[in-house]
């Protein structure tokens, strides 16, 4: 189980502190898939970084009773000056896995061929996305945190990612953050909507979807 209790997150700005998350509560049980909807800048990525432990809340408690992934996204968490394989080795070392027996999977899934031995900064965004996703699947977690993972890549690659994530790892908990309500509806059982720093909970994605679009209409 993951539990967030009374989470507040403030960031300093030149105009004084800005409250991004306002008294947010969230519980995710093993095997549960929870979506978080929100417009750009609503605090979705902040929330997922707090769940992962990459950032600490200003106030409130984050408890993790199961293993939780880093926020899987198609940017971040990689070093551009290192090669694809060196990035794999680094991730394996910090999570205590043996990199050498993961290489065949990475070669097969990423389809990067000889580029795996070239610096990541020489990759196209599509190549980076393939590497990032492939490395993300190397370490197993009870709960995967997914941040806008559909943003890059072609249809065939989406298909492969979906298979790895939602079929092979269908029994894991997931928190999926997106501004695309269709993606959340497809993959989640329930969802929350972030508006003005507050997380509104809905027991089914349909109600979340309706609320999200009403809020969007109000602001428009």
């Amino acid at each position: 189980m993951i539990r967030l209790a009374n989470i507040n997150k403030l960031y300093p700005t030149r105009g004084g502190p800005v409250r991004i998350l306002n008294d947010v509560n969230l519980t995710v049980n093993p095997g549960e898939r929870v979506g978080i909807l929100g417009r750009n800048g609503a605090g979705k990525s902040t929330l997922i970084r707090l769940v992962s432990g990459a950032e600490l809340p200003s106030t409130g408690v984050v408890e993790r009773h199961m293993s939780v992934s880093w926020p899987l996204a198609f940017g971040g968490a990689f070093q551009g000056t290192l090669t694809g394989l060196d990035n794999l080795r680094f991730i394996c070392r910090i999570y205590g896995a043996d990199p050498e027996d993961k290489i065949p999977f990475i070669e097969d899934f990423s389809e990067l061929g000889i580029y795996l031995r070239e610096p990541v900064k020489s990759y196209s965004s599509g190549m980076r996305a393939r590497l990032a996703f492939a490395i993300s699947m190397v370490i197993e977690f009870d709960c995967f945190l997914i941040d806008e993972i559909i943003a890059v890549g072609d249809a065939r690659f989406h298909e492969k990612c979906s298979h790895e994530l939602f079929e092979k790892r269908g029994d894991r908990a997931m928190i999926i953050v997106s501004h695309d309500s269709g993606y959340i509806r497809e993959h989640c059982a329930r969802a929350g909507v972030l508006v003005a720093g507050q997380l509104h909970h809905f027991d089914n994605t349909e109600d979340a979807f309706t609320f999200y679009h009403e809020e969007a209409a109000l602001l428009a």
Partner: protein
Amino acid sequence: MSANDESVGVSLADSWRIERRVIWALMLREILTRYGRHNIGFLWLFVEPMLFTLMVTALWTATKAVHGSNLPIVAFAVTGYSSVLLWRNMPSRCVKALEPNLSLLYHRNVRPVDIFISRLALEAAGATMSFAFLILFFHFVGWLEYPEDFLQVVAAWGMLAWFGGGLALFIGALSERSETIEKLWHPAAYILFPLSGAGFLVDALPVEAQHFVLLLPMVHGVEFLREGFFGSKIIAHYDIGYMALLNTLLTVLGLAQLRVVSRTVVPE
């Protein structure tokens, strides 16, 4: 205000295992990004400081810069300049150390303190290997006598490394909170070099000047090191208790600043 972040069920032994794993991974990553796999690769870690020390040794030998003593110039330069590299490179590597590594902070187990510790360990290892190889090499060609008190040299080297590490944590953490620190560190490091005791013996200075330079902790370390090296040939001025006190102060302040940074840092 209180905030908690806990992964329940992680014991102290687990934390220690994770900590070692993360620091080792960061060190390997740092070696690869700094030196790559081209030409001599990671050997640059100590070849670079060796070249520095060799050039200064050559310069001081050529100009007969014995700085008020009749000590053998090569041993004088090697002990002096190696000490400078030890305490000065650590802070230099830790200034703005987080920025290029922000993306790594996406991984919960990688904390800012780990990035600092991995850099400190690398710098200390490089400077130590350089110092050791130079002593062996110059002894082999007959330009340098082995230290009179080997253990005292090791202890002094440890004190200088501790000073460098404490200063690095303090300056490094502050540089994450204020841009100004980076600007101030470079001139400070430049002016501290001639005052650090690397190029003179405290005993050769006028008494007024002695009081002044002995305010600087690294001077005590260099004097202690040289006494271990040359023993009875010099009169050394040092107070290791004073140095330990300032080292402790720097370390505690550095860790406190780093704690603030850890709470506020945003992964890229």
